[in-house]
């Protein structure tokens, strides 16, 4: 079915799914979430108005992701001490909307800050850092085997977490590289020569936990953790390394995520997770974070070209962000070679 506006088709779908008349009001696409088309809307039902978010697969995606994993991640953490929005409905076949999508509760009143905005969280950066890294610690502390995310199956063994992730992201570079990238290639070889110790436990890994992927109230409190589409099971240090990547520091190299010092972030995370950060192992995950980032930016450059140059966000990611990531990778390699 392709007739009617998106709002009309969504209304038809939800009316059938909820077995009651639903009309859609104020549907509007919002920016962000490069791997999904994201819309806010109100669903008007006999029981009242529900503020919701629609996340629909785009024709081209920045990263290949499984919308089911995002939905299960939200189910795993909503209402459990993590500000995960309530998942509402998952449609894998697309139905009236033609492409897979899911609907989740909308959390109004918060702000998302660009990681490229300087000093985005002042004057509440330290308080927000406590919430940001504390929340990540609570995600790491959870036992994935007891959560809905376990439905994904096939968890790695403790000693294979690193290899699974490195194989995946280096494979993305192999497939999508348009211009030879010696810097990230050198980093990949270093990672293979210097594997980290086995994970201390299996954790839910958000996969894109960073500044810019949450809503905050402007007073130092996170009110929604967003963009769970790369969630998987793995080493808890993976998310910590990604969250601390210099790319997400708002150009403030003294504060990770633009919030607190690295030592403070680790201390907060350790208190919340009950886990310890092995600093030698963490070096591996820090470098891996930059490799994974570069894989995503390389992939976005290819998708920008393959998709007919339509999405400016793909251009930005595959261009400015890729160049910045190369700087970060080169700095890390220099430290390791010293």
């Amino acid at each position, binding site marked *: 079915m392709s007739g009617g*506006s*998106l*709002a009309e088709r969504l209304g038809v779908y939800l009316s059938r799914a909820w077995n009651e008349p639903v009309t859609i009001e104020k*549907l*509007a*696409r*919002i*920016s962000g979430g490069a791997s999904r088309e994201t*819309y*806010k809307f109100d669903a008007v039902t006999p029981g009242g108005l529900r503020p919701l978010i629609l996340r629909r697969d785009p024709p081209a995606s920045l990263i290949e992701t499984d919308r089911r994993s995002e939905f299960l991640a939200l189910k795993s953490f909503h209402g459990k001490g993590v500000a995960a929005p309530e998942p509402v409905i998952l449609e894998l076949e697309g139905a009236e909307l033609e492409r897979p999508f899911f609907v989740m509760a909308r959390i109004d009143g918060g702000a998302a800050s660009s990681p*490229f905005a*300087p000093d985005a969280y002042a004057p509440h950066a330290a308080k927000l850092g406590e919430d940001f890294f504390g929340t990540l610690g609570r995600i790491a502390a959870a036992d994935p085997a007891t959560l809905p995310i376990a439905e994904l199956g096939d968890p790695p063994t403790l000693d294979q977490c690193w290899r699974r992730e490195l194989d995946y992201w280096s494979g993305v570079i192999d497939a999508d590289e*348009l*211009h*030879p*990238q*010696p*810097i990230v*290639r*050198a980093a990949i*070889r270093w990672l293979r*020569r210097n594997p980290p110790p086995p994970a201390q436990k299996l954790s839910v890994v958000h996969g894109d936990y960073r500044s810019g992927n949450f809503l905050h109230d402007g007073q130092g409190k996170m009110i929604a953790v967003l963009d769970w589409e790369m969630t998987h099971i793995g080493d808890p240090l993976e998310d910590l390394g990604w969250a601390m990547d210099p790319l997400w520091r708002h*150009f403030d190299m003294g504060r990770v995520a633009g919030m607190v010092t690295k030592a403070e972030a680790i201390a907060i995370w350790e208190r919340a997770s009950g886990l310890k950060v092995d600093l030698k192992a963490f070096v591996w995950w820090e470098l891996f974070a930059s490799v994974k980032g570069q894989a995503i930016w390389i992939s976005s*450059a290819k998708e*920008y*070209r393959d998709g*007919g*140059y*339509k999405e*400016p*966000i793909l*251009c*930005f990611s*595959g*261009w*400015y962000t890729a*160049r*910045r990531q*190369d*700087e970060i*990778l*080169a*700095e890390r*390699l*220099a430290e390791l*070679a*010293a």
Partner: protein
Amino acid sequence: MTPSVREVLTGCTVALMTPPSADAGPDYAASRAGMVSMMLGLATQEAEHAAGAAIAENADIRGVFAQCGGYDAALGGRLSAAAGEADLALDTPTLDAVNARLRRLLIELHEAVEAADDAETNRAIVALYGRMAQGRRMALGGGR
């Protein structure tokens, strides 16, 4: 390098000529326009610097090749051949094509250096990476 200025400008044109869908709200349209504006600003930088950056990077890579004669036999004499070349055509597509060839050879050289456990040459190549990244640096607003 990718995307090229030509591709970016094509993309900006496509974005500006494509009307927003009926479901795109004003916030999305404004955000998209802002992103196009940012791309045009970056394209200005790239148009001014891309050729110079490619020439400098190619020369820098050749300079490292010239210092790595010990690996030349293993790489079939390609290091010395590449080290002796110069950029004669100065249009960006040609410079990029040469740069791609040099970068591929640099990857091979670095692999050979690592296999030989040659820490000194490894540091020289890693230092080259730093200069390459700095040479291609782009700045957002405020010089960041």
